[in-house]
């Protein structure tokens, strides 16, 4: 596995320290003088759950942005179309949650994709599958933590798109396989539902910023 990565790309989502702003996907935003070293706590209640989703969408958006910017060499015909769509969707999810949270949002996270070989189709697609399946499990487990029906509706409109992504990625890995409709992750007709503590543990290796969820289960 290629452990090298470009410092310039690494800084794409870097949460600026000691600077006046943060570069996020081309936009320059104030960082409110918070230091990345302090990490980010997601908060409690519905805001905590939305911030949790926002953290995961940041991760996915950063990943696909990097994938599309650095296409692997062994591209197959549909790969780029689908990966570009997924990037656009995840960016849309991230921006939607950013807007919904307003000034109660967590800071921009710094990601760590050092373990991903962006030149390898296999490494990229396997990582994509992990992220999409994890996203589905996360939203499924988070639904019952929400109190506000509008937030539940919003989460519902995102989670099924994540599941559609998971299927498309699984189909790219093994076309027309049972895996493409969830074999290996779906059990007795049900997708998993995971709690934030479990999801954050799995997402942890890809997020450099310390993310805590002290008020979430």
């Amino acid at each position, binding site marked *: 596995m290629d452990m090298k990565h470009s410092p310039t790309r690494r800084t794409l989502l870097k949460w600026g320290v000691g600077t006046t702003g943060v570069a996020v996907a081309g936009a320059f935003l104030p960082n409110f003088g918070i230091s990345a070293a302090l990490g980010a706590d997601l908060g409690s209640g519905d805001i905590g759950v939305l911030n949790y989703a926002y953290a995961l969408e940041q991760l996915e958006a950063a990943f696909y942005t990097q994938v599309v910017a650095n296409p692997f060499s062994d591209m197959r015909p549909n790969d780029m179309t689908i990966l570009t769509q997924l990037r656009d*969707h995840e960016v849309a999810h991230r921006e939607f949650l950013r807007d919904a949270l307003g000034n109660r949002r967590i800071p921009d996270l710094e990601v760590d994709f050092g373990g991903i070989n962006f030149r390898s189709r296999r490494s990229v697609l396997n990582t994509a599958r992990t992220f999409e399946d994890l996203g589905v499990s996360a939203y499924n487990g988070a639904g019952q933590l929400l109190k506000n029906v509008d937030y539940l509706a919003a989460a519902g409109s995102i989670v099924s798109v994540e599941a559609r992504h998971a*299927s498309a990625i699984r189909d790219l890995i093994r076309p027309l396989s049972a895996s493409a409709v969830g074999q290996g992750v779906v059990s007795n007709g049900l997708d998993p539902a995971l709690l934030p503590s479990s999801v954050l543990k799995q997402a942890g290796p890809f997020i450099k910023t310390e993310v805590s969820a002290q008020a979430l289960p």
Partner: protein
Amino acid sequence: MTEQNTIFESFEPDLVDRIAVGRREAITKYAKSAVLWGSAPLTLALASTEAFGQDLPATVVDVLNFALTLEYLEAAFYEQGLSSRRLIPSESRDVFRTIGRHENEHVALLKSVLGGSAVAQPAVDFTAGGKYADVFENFATFRLLSETFEDLGVAAYKGQAGRLLGTGKILTVALQIHSVEARHASEVRRIGGKLGWDSAFDKPKTKAQVLAAAQPFLA
């Protein structure tokens, strides 16, 4: 295994019988807190008993029966499709066989919770009065209806989620079915040469909208 026996003793006896399939696996997963709800009719039955005792609230019964009607429809559709010779191309059989199994599992799950309140399996007409006369002879027609049912299922569960707010694990299980329907929808669309989605956000449908769409297939 004393612990498992204790858990099961808290159920009414026939409920235990209804959920007996795969219960050991489900109990094991239930015991691990990382996975909220791994599998099986047991989980939803457990959830409903835990939350409501033996009397499910009318809203929950209504939502789950609505879901069950759609699952009956889907399960019957794939059963008929998979048993029709020369309909599904061999390369796509794994996909449709897996989808069909999931729909059967959804039916079993919902029935196990609803018990005596479960609606009966509806009579179906997948030709919709002749409009899709070749549904079980022409794969293009079959695939198109499959896509219709899967996307409808996704929108239906999504539209009902708000009515399950506050039901805890029952909502969770509905969400766990919802995302599986979305996996199906995506793959069936891709088999038809389409993208697996319409946009970055899926839209819900109300119960009335869903029933209007399903009506032509209910004989």
